[in-house]
């Protein structure tokens, strides 16, 4: 227990009853049970969904289970009661039982399972037997006679009878005891090592078992190729929708989101293909559409027409209170400086590498200076000096930024993209206009990811939480500014996607014209979607996914599972 912990003790109390389903999860993997129950992570995957599909017939309560003392008088015909919720104080279990059959004075709990009968001597898995046994123990405590239970395997349509023996009951109680112990410790159990269970686990993408074990043992060291299994997709299936046409109307039609302009349909996107929706300025959206987005946990983001990120509408906050508690606590602890150091150091390093790769010779001194600033940032004694090192590095980097720009000569060469220093609010030249716009895109990206992971995006470690800025999003994006935002700006200029005529100027401020902004967003999206080799885990992954992995690793650091904050540096 570290200092911060002892001054803010976490008082953990368990609910009175353990759900039988949680005993099953715990027997399968203690970490899975902890993530689901204590940290309220829940992600339906195909197995659990299919489980629900198989359960669909039994999930509606029906039939009555006679009281235990009426069982004797019950007519000889069989009783079927579906979806019965029962608990028992003695063992401390609660269960929603799929089906209870009663006959000849005895009851028989039937638990539905997906798939076919396992090919092992017991014709069942231990976690399932334990879950069934817990149900039987609840029934017994409620006065029923219950010598056996049944596991019903939906795919092979087979029943496997399980005798509720004393040995099984003892094993079930032992698992319950371990479960209580782990829950009360407040420590997340470690991931299973190289386990064949992980690829089939519904929380693999949240748990990141191989990544966590690697980071815990060799923080931020490059893993050997194929040593780490990527147990989640390399890129997202769903993509964002941006609506910036003023006067556009967004509505819902069946399973699609429809965008109309002056009554004419201009786009329709299936909800399953939608990751989030960004609305710029005067765009209307119907309540039906908002409701559907909320129901599907698809974030809806509002921006000013100019691109200022105003807010996000995303339903309920994540239920992982433990993480938010650690996040707030870390602000007062040493973690805060440690995180800030890593973020700034990574940012400077990534800027240096971008500069080295993209500019002709003549920058050697600047690159050397950046290397020094990088080192200083890594050793900064406090936030003030860290801010100083960062400011210094940013000045050097932006001084040389224009050496990376090679606009087409036909477009007047560099004259249209004259850039000397970074300025904002309002940006006073085209390059600054694009940088600001790109940073706002990156901010929303991290705001979405942080909310999904369970953070409060407004409470940062490096950036101060003020003026409603999503400070943690600003923190987390530091290393990615050069890698994503700056490099998109460089590429749209150098490839002639954006030219000097693509800007409007009013009162000294520059902004992209709508069509050019569309092209800019598409370039940004391609960058987010492009696959790179992860510098630490050595597998192929999209930038957008990298952001989520970074946020999850940061969470694991704050929860005490990792010794150092996660880094991200291109090599």
């Amino acid at each position, binding site marked *: 227990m570290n200092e911060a912990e002892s001054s803010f003790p976490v008082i953990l109390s368990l609910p009175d009853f353990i759900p039988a389903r949680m005993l099953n999860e715990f027997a399968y993997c203690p970490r899975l049970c902890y993530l689901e129950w204590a940290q309220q992570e829940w992600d339906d995957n195909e197995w659990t969904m299919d489980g*629900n*599909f198989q359960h669909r017939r039994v999930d509606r309560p029906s039939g009555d289970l006679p009281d235990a003392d009426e069982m004797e008088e019950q007519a000889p015909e069989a009783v079927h009661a579906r979806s019965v919720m029962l608990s028992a104080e003695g063992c401390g279990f609660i269960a929603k039982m799929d089906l209870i059959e009663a006959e000849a004075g005895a009851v028989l709990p039937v638990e539905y399972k997906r798939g076919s009968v396992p090919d092992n001597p017991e014709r069942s898995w231990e976690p399932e037997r334990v879950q069934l046994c817990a149900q039987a123990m609840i029934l017994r405590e409620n006065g029923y006679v219950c010598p056996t239970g049944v596991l019903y395997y939906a795919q092979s349509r087979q029943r496997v009878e399980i005798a509720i023996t004393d040995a099984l009951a003892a094993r079930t109680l032992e698992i319950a005891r371990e479960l209580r112990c782990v829950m009360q410790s407040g420590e997340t159990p470690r991931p299973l090592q190289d386990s064949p269970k992980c690829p089939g686990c519904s929380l693999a993408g949240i748990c990141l078992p191989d990544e966590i074990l690697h980071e815990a043992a060799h923080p931020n060291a490059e893993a050997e190729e194929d040593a780490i299994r990527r147990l989640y*997709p390399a890129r997202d299936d769903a993509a964002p929708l941006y609506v910036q046409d003023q006067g556009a109307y967004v509505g819902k039609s069946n*399973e699609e989101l429809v965008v109309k302009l002056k009554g004419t349909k201009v*786009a329709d996107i299936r*909800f*399953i*293909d939608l990751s989030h929706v960004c609305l710029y300025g005067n765009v209307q959206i119907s309540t039906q559409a908002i409701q559907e987005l909320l129901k599907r946990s698809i974030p809806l983001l509002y921006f000013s027409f100019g691109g200022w990120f105003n807010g996000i509408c995303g339903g309920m906050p994540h239920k992982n209170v433990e993480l938010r508690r650690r996040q707030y606590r870390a602000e007062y602890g040493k973690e805060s400086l440690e995180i800030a150091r890593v973020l700034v150091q990574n940012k400077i390093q990534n800027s240096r590498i971008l500069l080295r790769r993209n500019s002709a010779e003549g920058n050697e001194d600047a690159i050397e200076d950046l290397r020094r600033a990088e080192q200083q940032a890594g050793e900064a004694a406090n936030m003030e000096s860290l801010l100083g090192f960062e400011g210094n590095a940013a000045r050097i980097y932006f001084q040389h930024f224009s050496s990376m720009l090679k606009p087409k000569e036909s477009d007047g060469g560099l004259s249209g993209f004259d850039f000397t220093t970074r300025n904002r609010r309002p940006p006073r030249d085209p390059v600054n206009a694009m940088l600001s716009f790109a940073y706002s895109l990156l901010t929303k990206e991290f705001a979405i990811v942080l909310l999904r992971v369970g953070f409060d995006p407004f409470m940062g470690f490096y950036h101060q939480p003020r003026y409603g800025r999503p400070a943690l999003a600003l923190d987390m994006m530091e290393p990615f500014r050069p890698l994503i935002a700056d490099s998109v700006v460089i590429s749209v200029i150098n490839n002639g996607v954006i030219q000097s005529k693509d800007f409007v100027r009013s009162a000294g401020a520059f902004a992209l014209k709508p069509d050019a902004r569309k092209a800019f*967003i*598409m370039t940004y999206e391609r960058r987010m979607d492009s696959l790179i080799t992860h510098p630490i885990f050595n597998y192929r992954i999209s930038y957008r996914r990298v952001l989520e992995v970074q946020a999850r690793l940061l969470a694991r650091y704050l929860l005490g599972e990792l010794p150092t904050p996660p880094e991200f540096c291109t090599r």
Partner: protein
Amino acid sequence: MRRLYIVMYDISHPKRLRKVFKIMRGFGDRIQLSVFRAELTPKERIQMMMKINPVIHHNEDQVLMIPIGPAGGEIEKEIEALGRPYEPCPHGAVVV
């Protein structure tokens, strides 16, 4: 990790046909009268089944889901069309 499916259906009542059609629009692109091309994760496949299942008549109607390979894979390039071309529309970010 999505897979590519050809989903085709034979629904014997116009009212149910319309319902299935509407559900399918949420999961894929219509390529022929009662044939859809759908890229689905295992989870989305089950979501689709859960929506269609209560709508169809289990003795009279039929919905077939034919997996033809990973989404974005090579197999789709081998599809040949006589007459109208086969043009799957790619999806990605949309900017309006």
